[in-house]
């Protein structure tokens, strides 16, 4: 087992996949110089500029052309640079890629990985900080994945490249350099949560970097004798409903936390699903960004953040409530 960064873990997965399958290639702006977050550094030296392909500043064409190339028999990995810029290619993703196989009655496939680095990254302001994972979950035809750890970024990138469906792959920009152990022998499956910590008192459900905050919150809660189970969903479609329901049936308490806007966020889906299926001991708590915008000034930016402290406090609140 090697220790590597979140960025390098995905890069390793890509390199291995490219070695094994000559039809896998990457395309995006500035990839030949390693990409904007250096998450492609060194790949062009091994695979050459055709397979680590630069692109014009043309998000619609990057997405659309990669789709065409997928229909023609290749397996593109599409780099969108910032998840925000992917909005320039929304028609291509939502109206074309997600729907083509169905509209054409199964004649086509779009085996693509669409990388969209997301989330707050100090003082990037409103156009470079968004987390829109719930949008993609709402679109039939797409698989949605939000890894939180180097291990999952390795494992799920491999799974995404192997997948014949289009996978919206949302890495979090704030953890590119976070290091962790990566077991390259492990394989991953979409729809299988990563139980980051077990606990019997309260269930914390999250994904992406907020799952890491949940682990921190659970550690703090443990100090106070509260056993928090941390379910890192890893993929949001499909999502591991079974793991969540099983856990809340045990704990009777639920906190869902995510960085994205709370209103109409995927946290609502998790809470609603639990509410439809399980009688909890206390009202569920949902934490997400206020429905406001992400500012440049650090103190303003922080107003939009869900923190480990807020998660721990929410968990404690569910503990205080008397069972109904």
């Amino acid at each position, binding site marked *: 087992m090697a220790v590597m960064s979140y960025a390098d873990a995905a890069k390793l997965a890509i390199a291995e996949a490219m070695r094994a399958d000559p039809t896998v290639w990457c395309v995006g702006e500035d990839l030949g110089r390693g990409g904007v977050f250096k998450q492609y550094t060194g790949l062009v030296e091994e695979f050459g500029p055709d397979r680590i392909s630069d692109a014009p500043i043309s998000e*619609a064409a990057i997405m659309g*052309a990669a789709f*065409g190339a997928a229909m*023609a028999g290749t397996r593109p990995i599409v780099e969108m640079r910032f998840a925000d810029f992917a909005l320039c290619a929304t028609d291509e993703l939502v109206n074309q890629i997600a729907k083509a196989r169905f509209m054409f009655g199964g004649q086509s496939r779009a085996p693509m990985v669409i990388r969209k680095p997301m989330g707050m990254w100090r003082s990037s302001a409103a156009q470079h900080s968004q987390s829109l994972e719930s949008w993609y979950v709402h679109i039939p035809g797409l698989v949605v994945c939000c890894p939180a750890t180097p291990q999952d970024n390795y494992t799920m990138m491999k799974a995404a490249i192997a997948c014949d469906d289009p996978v919206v792959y949302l890495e979090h920009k704030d953890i590119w350099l976070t290091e962790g152990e990566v077991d390259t022998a492990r394989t991953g499956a979409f729809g299988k949560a990563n139980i980051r910590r077990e606990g019997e008192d309260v269930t914390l459900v999250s994904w992406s970097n907020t799952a890491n905050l949940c682990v921190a919150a659970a550690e703090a809660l443990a100090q106070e004798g509260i056993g928090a189970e941390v379910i890192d969903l890893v993929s949001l479609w499909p999502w591991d409903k079974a793991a969540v329901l099983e856990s809340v049936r045990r704990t009777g308490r639920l906190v869902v936390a995510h960085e994205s806007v709370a209103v109409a966020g995927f946290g609502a889906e998790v809470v609603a699903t639990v509410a439809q299926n399980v009688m909890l001991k206390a009202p569920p708590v949902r934490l997400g960004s206020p429905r406001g915008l992400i500012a440049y000034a650090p103190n303003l930016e922080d107003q939009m953040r869900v923190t480990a402290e807020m998660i721990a406090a929410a968990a404690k609140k569910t503990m205080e409530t008397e069972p109904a």
Partner: protein
Amino acid sequence: MTLSNFDQEKGLARLHLMERIRAFEEAARRAAVDEGLVLGAIHLSIGQEAVAAAVIEPLRRDDYILSTHRGHGHTLAKGADATAMMKELLGREGGCCGGKGGSMHIADFGVRMLGANGVVGANITIAAGAAHGIKLLGGDQIVVCFFGDGAANRGPFLEGVNWAGVFDLPILFVCEDNQYSASTLTSDMTSGDVAERARALGLRTTQADGNDVTGLAATAAEITARIRETGKPEFLHAKTYRLSGHTYFDPATYRPEGEADHMRETACPIMRLRTDLTRAGVTEGEMDALRQAAAEEMAAALDAARAAPWPADDSVFADVQDIGSPVEEAF
């Protein structure tokens, strides 16, 4: 078109194909108007058949085409089965897309027709990408991408054409210029000139009469041979005219009085080819027989479609996605 080097056999084949396209669409229109059998919007290419027939003629079966919302002609020309297409228009089992797409998403990957598209201009980047895929895989196929004059005002036009130029891709972009974008005269909403745009984007660009199938076929043969040879993208601007409304139920009252009638009499590509063939010595009878055969083929296609059952209800859950599909427990 002078008829000096006119190839009679080819001319008859083209006439037959154009008659088939027209007969298909006339049958579809009847099915829609008289019988209410076509439930969604269909866009007829009546008057534009020469572009499909001529440009696709030099293509190999393994070359790709991508089309627009007005895609019946292109699809038939590439070799798709009319019955499967008609079933698709009626939303029936056995339709080429299983009844899921209808006219606007007609596709036959078996003949490498990668689909009509309901979003104007969206096929341009996708087509560039198909050519990119060919190049990456080392294939020698080419791609032809059809789109309308209105589509040239959308961003993907610039992005897709630039892409093909940057990566030197084997693709022919065909602007099928019928002068209208739905109810709007495209020239009113276009600054500058479409062919100039393509030239400025670095593509070798040819302008042609899109209603003269003979001349256009010669032009297309030359261009597609060159693309296969050089691997470089080119652009063809073919001027034509849509003789019917935007959709089958559009009376097209926005046109200047008499314009369509005038064009029907002077520009209809079928009529023009018949005139040329007559001059070359082909008899009316021979030509009428082709029209008759086309009409019968499409009547039979419509009969088969009419008789076909609806798709199985649960087929709607198939072919959404493999992972996290709506049929899985996860839903």
